């Protein structure tokens, strides 16, 4: 996987577009959601405790399961924001899956984008799975600028 910061940045930077800015929290949550539901249980339960949970949680890199997950999460959001929250979370998580599919794994592919209709694993092999670490400084600057600059400009105008 690209590291979680790269996924965070993909959601957050898109969420800074003024017309969708109010949904950036949902978009960002969506962008990290697949790894929240896959990697954290995998690291804690599988690697440290030896409970073979990997195949159970790998479904959270499939668009259909992410659609259901986004729906479940949006049910926890207040009524007036629910539909936009659902769309933002699902869009963020879809961007995550697309980024993950672009990676080149050392072995065979590990993601099943067509689950549950097909168990075939897919990768496009466009960049190395650790490439995101190289881009971390650039992404950090972009995120920092997007986080700080709008507030600073607003204060300056006042």
């Amino acid at each position, binding site marked *: 996987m690209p590291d979680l910061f790269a996924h*965070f940045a993909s959601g957050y930077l898109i969420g800074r577009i003024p017309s969708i800015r109010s949904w950036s*929290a949902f978009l960002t949550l969506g962008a990290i959601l697949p790894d929240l539901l896959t990697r954290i249980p995998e690291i804690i339960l599988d690697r440290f405790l030896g409970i073979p949970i990997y195949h159970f949680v790998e*479904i959270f890199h499939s668009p259909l399961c992410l659609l259901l997950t986004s729906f479940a999460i949006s049910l926890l959001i207040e009524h007036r924001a629910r539909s936009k929250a659902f769309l933002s979370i699902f869009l963020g998580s879809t961007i995550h899956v697309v980024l993950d599919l672009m990676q080149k794994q050392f072995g065979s592919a590990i993601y099943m984008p067509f689950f549950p209709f097909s168990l075939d694993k897919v990768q496009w092999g466009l960049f190395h799975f650790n490439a995101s670490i190289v881009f971390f400084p650039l992404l950090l600057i972009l995120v920092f600028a997007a986080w700080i600059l709008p507030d600073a400009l607003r204060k300056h105008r006042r």
Partner: protein
Amino acid sequence: MRATYFIERYRFLLFFTTIVALVLLGFYSAIAGMKTDYSFQSDLVDCLSGTRSCPQNTIVLLAQVKSNGSESITVNIKTKRGSRWEDLFDRDHSVLVIGRPPQTKVGQVLALRGVLLSNDRFLLEAYQMESKWTREIKYLISLFALVLTAILWARSCRFCGKRFLFFLKDTDNA
């Protein structure tokens, strides 16, 4: 409008139904995945012990370096799953890796891609030796992203435990 009303009225029922659907899909994936893993591992164990012919296609194995030679290395192959790392490698059968393997210290764990020529000989095509710091940097960066997401959520939403709902705050803070 009707759909919105329906969703609002049966919010908890829909929530738990969706969770149950996800759990069922998870079990389906787990059963299918573990079946494939078990079949591969059992073929590998039989191949290493010499009771069955080895797979002829390119495979990826995790291996721990047992000894170093000038043109080859001897490794123990990971054949089990579990949390105790030292118990996962087949110590009874060593495999000689040929094809320019890396010269590395004994005990180092490597991912090897190549073909098993026989039960004790592996022709290497590529290897991967992820340094410990790469993984740790990735974990740190990821933790940082988690903290930023939590801050973003705290600035954008507030949680009402009584109604089990997130409400949007002033969206300018987002």
